[in-house]
């Protein structure tokens, strides 16, 4: 067979591993269905307490998505409040909204986001979607893509850096966090300028978290491969977070 799961565990060892994982049966079932239906990247696992955001063109995206029937167009017609403008404030550590109330009076509101504990807790909760076997295979693949010391850095710290040979920008790849883009190209520069944080999840991710549908190291491999192979596409397909925004994870 041309399609081979990399480094399959012996059956007895897999049974032992999955004995401790209540979601293993569902995960394996989705894997079998994906193989039959030829969804090469698999089927993302819906989670009860996490909203699954799926790439719109992915097969069965609408059925699997738990975003619901909400659309911005419906909200603007039904709600008496009109949002005129919104932006992030580094000083206030929150989103600022300028809106018109029911009487037409212009008001402002600050929605503070002093920390990302909720984001972190949701990410922790989404870990049930991944299996140790999947993460192990992803680590084996990453080990073939980077040098030994880089892989060691990743195992011990959850991150590593690589400079693009094309653009000269330096990327800090992190497990379960957006990739930070640093500009250290100026020869006389002694400090690095943070350009942004790039967030990208193949297929799907869980809203309000840093968790993707794929295991954490698969997301890192996706970032690394795209940066190396097509940097423009990496930027085009990613969500760019300002360094000061909490979603950047800095």
């Amino acid at each position: 067979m041309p399609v081979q799961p990399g480094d399959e565990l012996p059956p007895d060892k897999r049974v032992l591993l999955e004995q401790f994982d209540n979601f293993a049966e569902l995960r394996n079932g989705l894997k079998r269905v994906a193989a039959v239906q030829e969804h090469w990247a698999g089927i993302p696992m819906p989670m009860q307490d996490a909203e699954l955001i799926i790439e719109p063109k992915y097969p069965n995206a609408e059925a699997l998505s738990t975003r619901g029937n909400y659309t911005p167009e419906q909200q603007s017609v039904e709600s008496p409040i009109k949002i005129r403008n919104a932006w992030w404030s580094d000083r206030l550590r929150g989103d600022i909204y300028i809106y018109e109330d029911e009487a037409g009076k212009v008001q402002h509101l600050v929605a503070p986001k002093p920390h990302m504990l909720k984001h972190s807790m949701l990410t922790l909760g989404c870990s049930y979607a991944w299996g140790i076997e999947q993460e192990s295979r992803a680590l084996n693949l990453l080990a073939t893509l980077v040098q030994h010391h880089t892989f060691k850095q990743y195992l011990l710290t959850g991150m590593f850096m690589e400079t693009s040979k094309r653009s000269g920008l330096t990327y800090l790849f992190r497990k379960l966090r957006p990739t930070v883009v640093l500009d250290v190209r100026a020869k006389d520069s002694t400090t690095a300028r943070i350009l942004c944080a790039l967030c990208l999840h193949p297929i799907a991710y869980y809203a309000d978290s840093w968790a993707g549908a794929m295991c954490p190291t698969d997301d890192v491999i996706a970032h690394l491969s795209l940066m190396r192979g097509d940097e423009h596409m990496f930027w085009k397909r990613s969500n760019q977070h300002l360094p000061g925004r909490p979603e950047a994870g800095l």
Partner: protein
Amino acid sequence: MTGTVGILNVGAGDTKLVFDPANSQDCIRAARIVKDMIRRGYALLIEVVQSDGTKQYQRAYDFKEDSFEYIVADFDPVVAQTEDVEEEAPQVGVELAAGDGGQSLATPPRKSGRKGSRTKRVSATGTKAVAVARSAGG
């Protein structure tokens, strides 16, 4: 010498396609899958050996099922952009040198960043690749 494609997969972590010249049936099946992935918008990042012996990753735009070859662009977009900037500099110099009341001499036509449609083929056997599905954002 075999080539591999690592497909990032939700349920399996990493699924491998193998292009083994000794097994034509598997090569045909693998080729069909690669072609289908490209059609669906997957990014195929392949490791290409450059003329100076170094290895660089490039994205495959297409795949030839009959010859098991990836089609990649034969130019680097960042290098092309730099060369465009350098080519425009003499053009400005020619315009400033014209001393006939502002009438400039004939200038060379502006060249675009993309150097035509040059592509090259890379054999799938003996090549390492990673397939990344379309992004849902983040």
